């Protein structure tokens, strides 16, 4: 499955990453605030270049286990302001997962929501998934706040289920079913 790029939302263009996106990508992936609740430390330029190289090949889904990774480009800002992902978790059970990381300069305007809604659309309408989940650290309120605004339901609060950056970490898992997506559309 390969979406019909570029994907246009009201204010963004979602498209595969390109080599020249490196500076924009690195600008937020190197930010400690952005990385606080993500696995991994703030990116070095080399880390960002590695990530970009991987993302270049993540523009289509051919088998379960793969990720779609798209740049969220703002024509108004002339920059990539974040990235969004859709993981194909299970073909047999028709399950997927979305994720999003945005540059703090561009947060608070509903841009992540626009991009995430497009990923839900790809998952439910193009891939005919039955259930899509999203996960985050419970301390990452902006992230799960968005999951709630998207209409997802909190299905899990795992307490201390992993050691995260030197201390016990909890996990929220939110989910949406295709019938819920259809009702909301």
């Amino acid at each position, binding site marked *: 499955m390969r979406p019909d790029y570029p994907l246009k939302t009201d204010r963004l263009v979602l498209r595969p990453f390109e080599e020249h996106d490196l500076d924009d990508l690195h600008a937020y992936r190197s930010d400690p605030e952005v990385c606080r609740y993500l696995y991994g430390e703030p990116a070095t330029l080399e880390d960002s270049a590695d990530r970009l190289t991987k993302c270049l090949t993540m523009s289509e889904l051919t088998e379960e286990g793969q990720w779609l990774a798209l740049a969220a480009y703002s024509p108004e800002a002339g920059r990539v302001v974040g990235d969004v992902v859709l993981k194909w978790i*299970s073909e*047999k059970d028709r*399950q997927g997962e979305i994720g999003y990381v945005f540059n703090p300069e561009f947060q608070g305007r509903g841009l992540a929501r626009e991009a995430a809604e497009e990923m839900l659309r790809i998952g439910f309408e193009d891939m005919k998934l039955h*259930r899509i989940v999203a996960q985050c650290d419970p301390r990452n309120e902006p992230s799960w706040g968005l999951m709630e605004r998207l209409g997802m339901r909190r299905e899990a609060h795992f*307490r201390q*289920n992993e050691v995260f950056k030197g201390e016990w970490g909890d996990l929220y898992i939110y989910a949406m079913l295709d019938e819920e997506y259809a009702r909301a559309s």
Partner: protein
Amino acid sequence: MRPDYPIKTARLVLRPFETTDLDDVFAYRRLEEVNRYLYSEPYTRAETAENLAKWTAQDEIIEDGQSLALAVTLDGRVIGEADLKLLSAEHRQGELGYIFNPAFHGQGYASEAARAILKIGFDELRLHRVQAECDVRNEPSWRVMERLGMRREAHFRHKEIFKGGWGDSFVYAMLADEYRTLK
């Protein structure tokens, strides 16, 4: 980690499986009722023997993904089984499971055996968190989890196709310091 067998509770003995347990295990593993919320279908005698041979080797845990599969006996008869799986040594996470012969339901045996499993998990394997999962329709199973003092952490809806329909599941969990206050 290999527990000091046999493990004795007030009324039960938990020990590794033996091939001579075949009749007792087949007696419940063949039942529709027992398999309703398991991934397996009722076992034939041959399937029971085949699986039993595997379980006899599951008496110690060395790495992630391995389980202890213990026979639960009452007066020498296998009335069920109790499992402890190591999910992650790095994050010190494990998972509890149990299956009982319906003829022995309602006597608190599952709770008693599960408590012994929690003891192994927290005291011997030094786990930080032990979880247990079941189909939401399997009320006797999650009632055991609640009686043990575990907390419901998840209600997954339609996470997988289970025996021809969408399956919902509960995940219960207990932390090491919660276990300590139970004692």
